[in-house]
């Protein structure tokens, strides 16, 4: 239980950084932290006391495996996070090239 809560605190830290920080790079970092927290949460859900990694062995028979399904999901999620990060960085670099700044206050010209 305490692990879940700590995990959610990590999520909230990333959320705060993503929404509040004025620096575009910091926003990307915030997104990354949020992604980490979610990934960790899934794996925590699949953990089993004294469990073994879900890889069968030729020589010994293990019965107590951790849940492999969340691991498969998170493999997908990590790659999705990488893709979004890359696209964000690309857009930020392009913005920097136009304005020579990462600060959202200097950049913001659009009306909300």
């Amino acid at each position: 239980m305490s692990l879940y809560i700590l995990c959610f605190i990590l999520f909230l830290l990333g959320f705060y950084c993503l929404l509040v920080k004025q620096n575009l790079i910091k926003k990307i970092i915030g997104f990354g932290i949020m992604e980490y927290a979610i990934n960790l949460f899934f794996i925590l859900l699949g953990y089993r006391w004294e469990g073994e990694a879900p890889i069968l062995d030729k020589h010994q028979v293990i019965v107590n495996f951790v849940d492999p399904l969340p691991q498969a999901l998170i493999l997908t999620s990590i790659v999705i996070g990488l893709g979004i990060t890359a696209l964000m960085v690309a857009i930020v670099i392009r913005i920097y090239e136009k304005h020579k700044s990462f600060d959202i206050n200097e950049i913001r010209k659009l009306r909300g």
Partner: protein
Amino acid sequence: MVVFFVVIPLLAAFLVPLVSKMREGSARVLAVLTGSLLLLLSIAGIFMVKNGSIVYSLGGWRPPFGICMVLDGLSVFFLLIINLIGFIALIYSWDYIKRYSSQGLYYTLFCLMLSGLNGVAVSGDLFNLYVFLEITSIASYALVAFGTQAEELEAAFKYMVLGSVASAFILLAIGILFGSVSTLNMADIARSLADSGSRKLILFCLGLFTMGFSLKAGLVPFHTWLPDAHPAAPAPVSAMLSGVVIKVIGIYALIRLVFNVFIFTPAISQIFIWMGIISMSVGVLLAIGQWDFKRLLAYHSISQIGYVIFGIGLGTPLGIIGGLFHLFNHSLFKSLLFLNAGSLEYATGTRKLQEINGSGRAMPFTSVSSLVASLSIAGVPPLCGFWSKLIIIIAAFQAGNIIGGITCILVGMVTLASFLKVQKYAFSKQAGDIVSKIKEVPLTMVAAMSVLALFCVLIGLFFVPFLDQLIRPATNVLLEGANYVNLILGG
């Protein structure tokens, strides 16, 4: 057959970069071919589900072990919207996109967006839905930034930040649900949730899902990205974003979950109704003062999505019919309006209403089709928008929701006023000096706009068979939420 809804656009998306290296012009041929195949397939889909819904298990693994695709009345309805508007937007892009460089990349992203949307519409698995939702979202972020102008990049970044917040909330909710029921198939989740007694957990997940999907749909407390992102994209993409994307990855995913996986309770109904009322009013009030044509349309999108969610939130059969019908109509006339705005920009080089100044005589097709669309969105009989708004208003009064009904009527009037302003300035005002220099846009763009205008009129005239054929099966899927479980897991 269901799997081809995803495979065909994916195949095109992988092929387009290869063929466009050889000849740049071949990209658009391939893309239009894909669009037409998908349109034919989705029309065939309507007839396929006539004799019952189809469940397709991927890899031969029976649900809930593998992923399954579900083709029922609701998904067929949304597939038709996606592929109809997608095809028309591709036709429109044929000439329009010549203004930009790297057409190959544009068509690749467009095909990826189509495959993501189709994937969301047919998916029967929660995590799979998330994956395809991400494909759609990433493709639309990139398409918003496609022009690489300063404003477009800023709008894309804002869209991206809020879009990833939404995705994070959705993924978190999926995680919590998965921890609770240990399965991902939507029907299996529905069955397990019905058995389990974890009320608080269900509420929390529902809250996260509502937040996430409302962000994607641009409903009012979460709408701030929409008026920047939709105008920034190239016109056919704006048409797709406003006409299709916010509906499929916002409204469709939300109602599929709420009606078929969770149980539609009066509390949820109230939340939907109030979100609808607030979105309707705030969107239209923000739209009045706008002079940028596309930005004005984007604000109207918020307002019209409010109608949709209000109608569905009423929860009565008539309300849901009205909501879904309005959703269809909105995708027709809002796409048409965005294409009109794109044509005006193409011809005059500006989107400011004051500067366009009466181009009606020089551009007859654009002005006529835009008149049709404006009257539709404002709800003037006998065009399509009138009937759907009428149904929603009747449903509101029938359900005893007087405030909602009156708001609908008032918002309709303000919308009419707003579009009369557009017509007055953009088309019918006395010609300024800009008019002598402009001429009608190329043939493919005219054709795309005319087809949409024709649809607006035809559906307005023959809406009863349309309701019977398409909307009623979709409504039944929502109303008989529990059947979904039996359909997939077999009783």
